[in-house]
């Protein structure tokens, strides 16, 4: 009876029927045509996203290398070389950012934000690190974005972009780093500054740690002002920032404490470079 039939429910029959029905689907029906266009639209969107992810990775790598380079900076003669080399590297990063800006023309930046955010944060970290070494201050987000306004370099570039042949003005592209990406980049910067503090003590630079301590404290104050009102990622980085600040403050403490155990000019002997030694002797 029907019980027997029920057992065969999952047999060949439904599948055979299905194959037959699928052959009956008209490949150029309105529905199929619109799905073909959906395919194209989705593929285009995904491809662009992937291109941006690749650019973001390149930006991250080159920014990280710039940071490593800047760690090698000391006030020794090759310091200026290092600064110049870092500028060359950062220009290369900015060229990649220009490509990002070009990809994003006519697009809503927020649709692709997750693709490029990590790279931009790393860039902020690198450029603010360089700025601190040069000026002992924090670069502003406006200053960063000023450097991210690009114009077409040469005629070849202009003719390759739009078809507007009457346009005599250079094409400009710009990328605005969002306040959140800026904050996250600065938060990461504090980690590098902490490393700078420790390594500068090893180099005999006993002024930098105290400068850094004060600088980091200001940044920390800024972040506590934001507190928990920012996005989750900011709060997470605030925790790490607190630890970095503590490490720097402990280093300063150690210098201060050991400084009183060793006579000042001996301390200079132990820590300083030749030039600082001469200054100390003149002071005495």
């Amino acid at each position, binding site marked *: 009876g029907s019980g027997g039939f029920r057992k065969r429910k999952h047999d060949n029959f*439904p599948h055979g029927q299905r194959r037959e*029905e699928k052959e009956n689907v008209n490949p150029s029906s309105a529905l*199929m045509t*619109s*799905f073909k266009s*959906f395919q194209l639209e*989705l593929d285009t969107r995904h491809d662009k996203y992937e291109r941006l992810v690749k650019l973001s990775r390149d930006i991250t790598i080159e920014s990280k290398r710039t940071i490593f380079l800047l760690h090698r900076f000391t006030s020794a003669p090759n310091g200026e070389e290092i600064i110049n080399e870092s500028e060359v590297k950062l220009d290369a990063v900015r060229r990649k950012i220009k490509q990002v800006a070009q990809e994003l023309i006519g697009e*809503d930046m927020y649709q692709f934000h997750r693709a490029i955010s990590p790279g931009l944060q790393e860039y902020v970290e690198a450029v603010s690190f360089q700025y601190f070494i040069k000026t002992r201050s924090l670069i502003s987000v406006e200053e960063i974005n000023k450097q991210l306004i690009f114009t077409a370099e040469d005629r070849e570039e202009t003719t390759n972009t739009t078809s507007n042949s009457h346009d005599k003005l250079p094409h400009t592209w710009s990328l605005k780093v969002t306040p959140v990406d800026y904050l996250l980049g600065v938060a990461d910067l504090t980690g590098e500054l902490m490393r700078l503090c420790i390594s500068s003590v090893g180099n005999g630079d006993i002024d930098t740690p105290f400068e850094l301590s004060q600088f980091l404290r200001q940044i920390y104050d800024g972040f506590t002002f934001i507190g928990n009102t920012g996005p989750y990622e900011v709060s997470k980085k605030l925790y790490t920032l607190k630890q970095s600040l503590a490490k720097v403050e402990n280093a300063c403490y150690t210098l201060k404490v050991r400084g009183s155990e060793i006579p000042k000019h001996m301390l200079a002997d132990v820590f300083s470079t030749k030039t600082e030694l001469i200054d100390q002797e003149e002071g005495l």
Partner: protein
Amino acid sequence: VPKKCQKAREHFGTVRTQLESLKTKFPTDQYYRFHEHWRFVLQRLVFLAAFVVFLESETLVTREAVAEILGIEADRERGFHLDIEDYLSGVLTLASELARLAVNSVTAGDYSRPLRISTFINELDSGFRLLNLKNDSLRKRYDGLKYDVKKIEEVVYDLSIRGLNKEAAGGAGGEK
């Protein structure tokens, strides 16, 4: 059925007014910054619009038609728009609802509707097979489509082995 569809269309008027108001709450070029806020609602609305249209004409509502029903744009360039992935998500929800409708149609004695639903679903499935999806929420929802297809197949199979589909093609075919 036609009367219910008419009533449903009237409800969309209220929806249109509210979407109009939503449009004004944020800068127009930052749609994707706040997209998550209304994403679920839009997907639901797409499903509802698609359902009404299917009951009226047994065709798939187009993106443009949904946009019109909701009083929004179809393209991003023109303002507050319907994202393609939200449209597709809504359509997939329709598939699940149609599987349910097929089952209940049989229970109500309508033996022809499931057959028409089956044709529609198979075409929809073929359409979705063309898409290259990433492993996101849309992909997960698409994975559910095959279960809807299977369920409707089973309904059709049940009808055909009992000869009920022939009865439906013959004449009466159930009233709604």
